[in-house]
């Protein structure tokens, strides 16, 4: 144990000097002046530190505005372990936190809690005054906090429902205030927060009364107009149908014209595109004004404007028509609830539109995808390939070494060249390479030389790992980069780790036994392992709900798992115990993944935000808020500077880790997105959704570049081969399909015009790109992995029908 702890602090210490300090100070992004006073927690609470230890600096860090929200939101959860003395130690942040909480309570109508908190706070204020913090700073802070609260609300991390175990014993004021949370019904948290500033305004927008009986006429009038317009405009104007339909229906419901609403729905819902079906289903059940309060989908509709992209001509046509007809009702909706992105030039064709629409809030605005993205890869650290490489080659036939040499050089030179699109090497602080990492890299390079060159004529072999007897339900799988370990997350809350190599899993000896070991011996690393514990399978208990995400750290020392219970847990694969439980998402966490360089990880969940964490911080470093529905999957860009998230709102977003900004919004999927993967060169992104399609995106240009049709059910897993020639996709329809990625990315339409307008013409070539379809025996393909030699490993649980 001692040895282990030593090792871990070493990691932490290495990271600290350049790690958090550079990442944490705010980029002054949104100007909410919080100052850079984040007290970084140097020292002992490293990667292995538990919550209690790191909690001593509760609320200390947090630099950018978003983390500051996180503080207010997350503190209750973390505060369970905050000692009573903590508030005194706290800096101005605590006060701001307190004020934010008070405000929140007021908004949530939790008067008693507010009173209680106030009483507590008076004491606290004295204490704070004693420390001599200038009062006005507090005020400003409070203002900032409240402004932030209302701003981030659209996707507020549902702070109201605290973690039950966490709240129990704590005496901290904030927590006691929030402890009443569970009494309030379900989602009150996020809803109530929104209700004051935004929602009421939005709702009142619905207030204006038109004659409810006229709605159908308005709508059919517009429908008639659009259907009679010229072909080239019709497709564009047809986009209006859906948002108008929804808003008119909501208006009717809001003004309590239940019957009119019903008949309106009956009459026109059949006209909507089939990919809006899921939303329509939600809509159809919503028939009362009271229902609108708690319904998230509808909330999204009201709070965010539906984005349409229409050419100027078409727009003029529409405008003229509406003015002629004096159709104020519709005009109002267009003005209030829609965002029409007008462009000059030819109207788009039906196919072009169909390719891009489908998300919950319409297409992405064009400017949303304009910012520069450094999609290149980071320079590989130069590692001297040791001479034993030669020895090994010597064992082979004589001819081989000569062949290999040039290859290796080419690989070496590739990594030496700085990619013009790559981010600066130190754009975000990355952990330093340890010796073991270097060894692993060398191994990787050796394997690389033996890698199979894939292509349409040389398809990879697929080895399928079937989880048998998985009655408890397999929900997540991950495979280590070197393909030696497989982890499965199960619905019965367990995480199981298998070794698929002959090398068995062993844990470190007990502390007492460790002390007996001769620390000077050469094979100390071998000696600390307890042979008695060797087994192929280790079960990790700790979660209290289905485990939806699992991810190995690149160095294979840690495993992350995310669960329905709202936590992400970090497990040690040395001791096979849980090291940290990261609490922040109060709702199910759907996915988590380690950064390709380790140390950082990202998680996303039902609370509609993705969070960036560092293993040695119990609070998130960044909160990526913007999705309008659950964040289903999260992936790191190969250069670790960006994070992609796929969501149930049918968009994919790319976030900058440095400043937390959303730099790309990709729309086009017609169902919740369940899988993501970056191409190894970092230029492209592939996404798979419940609609069974795989879409390919050019990150640099922010364009959709391909559509792969073939799967008939949710695409659960995607992976590029190590060299990026083949894309493998696995699906709930029990197939693995291989696609020709080289051809898919060939001669892309990335001229200036396309890039500028975002109009894409997708080639209909899914069938040509499909290289192979492999049926499993009623085994959904949950995970795919390419080994270093380009062998495909697939995994899934056999589920007899």
């Amino acid at each position, binding site marked *: 144990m001692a040895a282990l702890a030593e090792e871990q602090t070493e990691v932490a210490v290495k990271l600290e000097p350049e790690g958090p300090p550079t990442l944490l100070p705010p980029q002054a992004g949104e100007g909410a002046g919080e100052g850079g006073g984040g007290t970084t927690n140097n020292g002992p609470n490293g990667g292995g530190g538990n919550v209690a230890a790191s909690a001593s600096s509760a609320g200390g860090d947090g630099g950018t505005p978003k983390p500051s929200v996180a503080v207010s939101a997350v503190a209750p959860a973390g505060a369970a372990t905050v000692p009573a003395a903590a508030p005194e130690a706290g800096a101005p942040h605590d006060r701001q936190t307190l004020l934010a909480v008070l405000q929140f309570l007021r908004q949530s109508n939790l008067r008693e809690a507010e009173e209680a908190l106030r009483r507590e706070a008076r004491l606290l204020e004295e204490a704070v005054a004693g420390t001599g913090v200038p009062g006005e700073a507090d005020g400003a802070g409070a203002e900032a906090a409240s402004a932030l609260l209302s701003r981030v609300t659209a996707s507020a991390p549902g702070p109201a429902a605290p973690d039950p175990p966490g709240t129990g014993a704590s005496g901290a004021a904030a927590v006691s205030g929030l402890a009443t949370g569970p009494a309030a*019904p*379900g989602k009150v948290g996020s809803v109530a927060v929104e209700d004051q500033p935004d929602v009421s305004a939005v709702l009142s927008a619905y207030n204006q009364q038109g004659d409810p009986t006229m709605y159908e006429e308005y709508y059919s009038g517009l429908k008639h107009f659009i259907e009679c317009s010229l072909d080239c405009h019709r497709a564009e104007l047809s986009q209006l149908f859906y948002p108008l339909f929804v808003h008119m229906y909501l208006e009717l419901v809001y003004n309590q014209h239940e019957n009119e609403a019903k008949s309106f729905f*009956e009459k026109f*819902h*059949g006209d*909507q*595109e*089939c*990919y809006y079906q899921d939303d329509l289903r*939600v809509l*159809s059940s919503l*028939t009362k004004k*009271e229902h609108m309060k708690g*319904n998230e989908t509808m909330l999204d509709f009201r709070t965010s404007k539906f984005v349409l992209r229409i050419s100027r001509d078409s727009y003029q046509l529409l405008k003229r028509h509406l003015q002629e007809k004096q159709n104020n009702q519709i005009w109002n909706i267009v003005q209030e609830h829609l965002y029409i992105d007008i462009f000059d030039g030819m109207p788009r064709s039906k196919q072009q539109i*169909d390719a891009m629409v*489908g998300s919950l809030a319409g297409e992405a605005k064009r400017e949303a995808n304009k910012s520069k993205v450094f999609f290149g890869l980071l320079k590989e650290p130069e590692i001297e390939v040791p001479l034993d490489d030669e020895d090994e080659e010597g064992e082979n036939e004589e001819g081989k070494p000569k062949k290999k040499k040039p290859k290796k050089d080419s690989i070496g030179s590739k990594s030496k060249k700085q990619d013009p699109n790559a981010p600066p090497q130190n754009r975000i602080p990355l952990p330093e390479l340890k010796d073991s990492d270097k060894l692993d890299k060398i191994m990787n390079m050796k394997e690389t030389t033996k890698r199979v060159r894939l292509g349409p004529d040389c*398809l*990879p*072999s*697929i*080895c*399928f*790992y*079937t*989880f*048998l*007897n998985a009655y408890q*339900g397999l*929900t997540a799988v991950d495979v280590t980069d070197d393909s030696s370990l*497989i982890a499965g997350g*199960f*619905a019965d809350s367990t995480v*199981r780790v298998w070794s*698929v190599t002959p090398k068995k899993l062993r844990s470190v000896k007990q502390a007492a036994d460790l002390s007996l070991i001769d620390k000077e011996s050469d094979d100390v690393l071998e000696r600390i392992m307890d042979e008695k514990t060797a087994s192929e399978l280790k079960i990790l208990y700790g979660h209290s709900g*289905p485990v*939806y995400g699992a991810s190995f750290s690149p160095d294979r020392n840690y495993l992350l798992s995310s669960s*329905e219970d709202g936590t992400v847990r970090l497990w040690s694969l040395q001791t096979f115990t849980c090291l940290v439980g990261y609490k922040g998402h109060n709702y199910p966490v759907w996915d988590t993944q380690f950064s390709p360089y380790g140390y950082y990880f990202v998680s996303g969940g*039902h609370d509609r935000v993705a969070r960036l964490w560092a293993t040695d911080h119990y609070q998130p470093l960044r909160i990526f808020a913007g999705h309008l529905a659950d964040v*289903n999957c999260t992936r790191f860009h190969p250069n670790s500077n960006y994070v992609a998230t796929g969501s149930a709102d049918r968009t994919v977003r790319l976030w900058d880790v440095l400043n937390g900004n959303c730099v790309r919004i990709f729309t086009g999927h*017609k*169902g*919740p997105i*369940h899988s993501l993967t970056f191409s190894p060169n970092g230029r492209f992104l592939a996404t798979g959704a*419940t*609609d*069974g399609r795989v879409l390919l995106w050019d990150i640099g240009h922010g364009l959709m570049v391909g559509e792969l*049709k073939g799967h*008939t*059910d*949710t695409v*659960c897993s995607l992976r590029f081969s190590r060299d990026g020639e083949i894309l493998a996709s696995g699906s*709930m*329809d029990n197939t*693995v399909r291989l696609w020709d990625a080289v051809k898919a990315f060939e001669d892309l339409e990335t001229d200036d015009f396309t890039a500028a307008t975002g109009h894409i013409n997708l080639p209909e070539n899914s069938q040509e790109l*499909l290289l*192979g379809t*492999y*049926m*499993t*025996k009623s085994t959904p393909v949950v995970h795919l992995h390419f080994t270093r030699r380009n062998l495909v490993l697939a995994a899934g649980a056999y589920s007899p029908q």
Partner: protein
Amino acid sequence: MAEEKKLKLSNTVLPSESMKVVAESMGIAQIQEETCQLLTDEVSYRIKEIAQDALKFMHMGKRQKLTTSDIDYALKLKNVEPLYGFHAQEFIPFRFASGGGRELYFYEEKEVDLSDIINTPLPRVPLDVCLKAHWLSIEGCQPAIPENPPPAPKEQQKAEATEPLKSAKPGQEEDGPLKGKGQGAAPADGKGKEKKAPPLLEGAPLRLKPRSIHELSVEQQLYYKEITEACVGSCEAKRAEALQSIATDPGLYQMLPRFSTFISEGVRVNVVQNNLALLIYLMRMVKALMDNPTLYLEKYVHELIPAVMTCIVSRQLCLRPDVDNHWALRDFAARLVAQICKHFSTTTNNIQSRITKTFTKVIKTLILPRLQQEGERIRGVLDGPVLSNIDRIGADHVQSLLLKHCAPVLAKLRLPPDNQDAYRAEFGSLGPLLCSHVVKARAQAALQAQQVNRTTLTITQPRPTLTLSQAPQPGPRTPGLLKVPGSIALPVQTLVSARAAAPPQPSPPPTKFIVMSSSSSASSTQQVLSLSTSAPGSGSTTTSPVTTTVPSVQPIVKLVSTATTAPPSTAPSGPGSVQKYIVVSLPPTGEGKGGPASHPSPAPAPSSAPSPLGGSALCGGKQEAGDSPPPAPGTPKANGSQPPGSGSPQPAP
């Protein structure tokens, strides 16, 4: 495209009565209608909301089935206490009852005896999760191992067999068969559909039937060799293993033609040599092939049926018929035929009715002529001094079987006025009983004719399938059956020739039908007419353009016509129709040699006092038939086989 979804999106609401019932159960007696309405709206909305959330958990849990735990988690999201204790995997434990004008749903709660629970042995502990690796694909090829699904899924084999032109390689035409099942595919439908339609409409006439390649890899050849050797070899353990392999292994699809040829040739040779053991082995192979869930045999049924039927009706199957238990083989083969009918009979191939027709002919030509003698023997046993009770029971059983199965055939053969005396004259002591049975059969047929039940024939007839195996039993064991195996090949040949000659003559067969049917009784007219209407129905649509579907329909028409035209000709004359059909070819030889020769056969003299030897011999035979389980459960099995068989013809016309 959205049209089809329209119906799904209606906003269903719980009935307000439910609210009342719930309120009553909570002790609130009077609840206003208005309140109920409000409550149902609210409750319905909340339930839907929860269901939608639960769906999310199902998707994230990578399942296709919503479970109760999903609902629990959805409730948890809403901060509602989950409903503990509802972990039914398969069904909702509600029971329904109605009475007194009320409908009730309730939980069925049984009283459980605690000691029962304590004393019952513990159930086995479920196996733990384990990982198993296999090759899903090796450099792009999927190996045919049990872990992988069969290379050509059964649906595809079926599609190939029944609609050879529509079937396509799975990769080429994804949208076709797969479209239906994926609900997730719905959104993609929009574009898929427009594309899907044309290739089927335009492409079909142009695309020729893909030639199937029957090249076997070296491994497959080795496998084939091993398996066939083991199947007919002497080592029973090996055979069991081989049969097991045939019955379970996926990927035998490509070897099917070889296997079916192996079996039919094997039967042909071994029937001649009276090698009972080998015949049994071959039938077991057929059974194993039928049992393999990954194989669809329809394409090879034409080879297998003659072989199997030969094993049922062949006059001699073993060298020493008195000693060897050839009845087991007959019985087994009869079951196989029943199974074949059950699996493969469709409106287009009419296998079941064709087989029953064949067996009817067997009854006609083999059993009817012998009825008189048999009747005498039965009477001898029944009326004579009681020698043994077993004899009596056996005779009784034989009599009832004879009556049961001969009556419908006679009803069809003879013209309506059923005269007891005429029957007595023709059939001896069984005459009167037969007569009354025939009358009954006629009445039944008329009744069914009224109901326009086209499946009369298939319902009443399959029973012979089983009894037939016994029918020829007392008959002569003349080894004059050399022709039989040869004739097995005949239907195949006619099939082939028919296929070739098919297109030009779609119309004649139906006319033949009608002519023939007019000669037979009313009930059968009904059946035959319906048959004939169905045949030209499909024929007429295909005649005018020489479309490609003709060949698949045509041979059937042709075959049916030969089969149906046969009876009138065989009944009186015989040898003229040798070429028509397998079993058709049997009767003449039977009449020529077997019929007369049967008198001196080991059977005792008909009239005189039953010699104990003959009686016991008879009884032995009967008892075997009566006691041994096969026939008895076999009959219900044959019956059970009807619903699918008879159900399928109905939708087509």
